């Protein structure tokens, strides 16, 4: 009886191990994508930009997303300068509209605008709302597992597909084995795959609505020597969000 229990325990221990060994780059990225793109989400975040001269700029915004990140709405709450400015991204950010409350004008932006920095931060709009781009725009390849930021991680290299217009030629992603949170992502230059542009580090991982969530994200810009820190102040998953939230009518509210 005891032996059976031990065998059972060993079996339980070895199943994840053998399962992990069998995981391909595609499997890992799919799990990351599933984790990152929940059906619906609401968040309130504080974004702090540290400029080259060491000055800080702080923004607070709310965001809503639906259909696993296919629809996104971001509305700024602070500072006063940008209060009520809002960005609507549909079709995995292939369609972008920006609302300027001072002129009450909505401007449709082309996808090249995704390359622009979000409020001067080290995040581009593409970094913020590209839906399942990890799967659709990149080809993954699993590399040797590594320990990074104190976590045992899978390492996956994602190489941009030839027909993709994403801004990065390749990404290297370190994914925590335990929960599939991509704890570190390195972003490489659009035309030079050997030139690293940015590094994203996620930390303070907590379980929110049964999902592991990094409450703090830092994007380090290697070129400009700047960094942007994003702190989640509030987050809710799988909430009821009507499609009418992701319309021009809602953008202007």
């Amino acid at each position: 009886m005891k032996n059976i229990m031990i065998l059972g325990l060993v079996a339980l221990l070895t199943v994840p191990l053998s399962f992990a060994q069998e995981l391909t780059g595609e499997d890992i990225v799919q799990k990351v994508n599933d984790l990152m793109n929940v059906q619906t989400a609401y968040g309130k975040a504080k974004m702090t930009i540290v400029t080259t001269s060491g000055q800080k700029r702080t923004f607070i915004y709310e965001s809503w997303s639906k259909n696993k990140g296919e629809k996104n709405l971001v509305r700024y709450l602070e500072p006063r300068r940008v209060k009520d400015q809002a960005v609507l991204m549909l079709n995995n950010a292939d369609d972008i509209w920006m609302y300027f409350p001072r002129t009450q004008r909505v401007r449709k932006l082309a996808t090249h605008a995704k390359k622009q920095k979000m409020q001067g931060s080290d995040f581009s709009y593409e970094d913020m709302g590209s839906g399942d781009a990890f799967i659709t725009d990149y080809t993954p390849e699993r590399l040797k597992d590594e320990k990074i930021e104190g976590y045992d991680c899978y390492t996956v290299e994602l190489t941009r597909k030839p027909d993709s217009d994403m801004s990065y030629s390749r990404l290297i992603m370190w994914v925590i084995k335990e929960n599939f949170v991509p704890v570190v992502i390195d972003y490489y230059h659009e035309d030079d795959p050997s030139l690293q542009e940015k590094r994203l580090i996620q930390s303070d991982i907590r379980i929110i609505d049964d999902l592991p969530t990094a409450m703090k994200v830092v994007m380090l810009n290697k070129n400009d020597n700047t960094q942007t820190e994003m702190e989640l102040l509030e987050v809710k998953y799988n909430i009821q969000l009507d499609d009418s939230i992701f319309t021009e009518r809602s953008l202007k509210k």
Partner: protein
Amino acid sequence: MKRGIILLVFPLLFSSFLLAQDKVEIFGYFESQLMGAEVKGEFLQLYSNKLRVDLKSSFSEKITFAANFDYITYHGKTQWNILDFLAPKVVSEVPQGMESFYVLPFSDRHFLDNAYIKIAFKHFDLTVGKQQISLGTGYVWNPTDVFNVKDYLDPTYEQPGHNAIRLDIPLGTSYTLTTLYSPDENWQDSAKMLQFKGRISHFDYSFIAIEKVWRFHDYTQFDMDSMNFLELPEKRQLFGVSTAGELLGLGVWAEYAYNKMASTKDFYELVLGTDYTFDFQTYVMIEYYRNTLGKTDFKEYNLNDWMRMMAMEQKAISQDQVYVFIQHPATDLLNIGISSIYSISDNSFALVPTLSYSLSDNVDIFAYFNLNFGQEGKLFAKNMGNGGMIRARIYF
């Protein structure tokens, strides 16, 4: 003076009333601005201070009240003689003894710019009161917008409010029908608008019809009754279409308006624009504008053309123009740019280098120079005065 005190006290009392309500927000900005221009060898300055106070109160999730009061003071050269900027041939059209009327005054002002209530019903939004009306997809010019004329030196500056009743009816998530009524003395003279907006693939488009009385003036005749230049009101019916989307990776937009005039010749306006952001963050925009009300030969520009353009009664006096804008983030806080506007019809152009700097979270500095390179009599003639502007804005 008494009127000024009343105007100042009213918003304070009104804001106190609103403060008594829940969820009232008070915000706005203070803006200090110095403008200068070289005119006839002398550098003249106009200094202005503007305080904008915004109030926003949500009485419920469905009812919102918003308003803003503007207080503006002017200092320095507050009386600009328009004739100083015009060619002698144009000035010679000024009737004898009327020279003193061609002065652009900058007087201290305080006014209720916007004040409206917006009610979100289940199937439509109703907005009643003085509100901004922003129409069209163009950046510098908006052929379908008969309510506003943008300043090409500062095209994103906020536009004044217009008294109107507006109904926005969403039809699904991709279509909207908008009707607007802007009352005048009677139904005939009031502005009416009907707009249908939609989306096909990655393109937004809209169809628009507007009827509005256009209040031109004849700047060669003075009306003693109104103590102003003679008004020549004329009914204008506009039928327009606009679109914005993406083509071959470029942002593209177009706007067209055919204007059917009651007594003068019909005309059309057209805007075609494109933009792109390079990987190194440089942003480039080009916009072409045609207005068949404008002229193709600068020798035909007359006093009325110039005055109507300066009074923002008409958008252009030359028929074809191109606007080019390039901007690059020099640092994470400083954006530098240059815009150029070229009048194809008379072969003159202006260069406008710009910079904007974020001094802190809520303080911006914006500056531009305005350099004209055309011969006398043309749209961007050197004698229009080279100059510039610097503006600091503090948001609260």
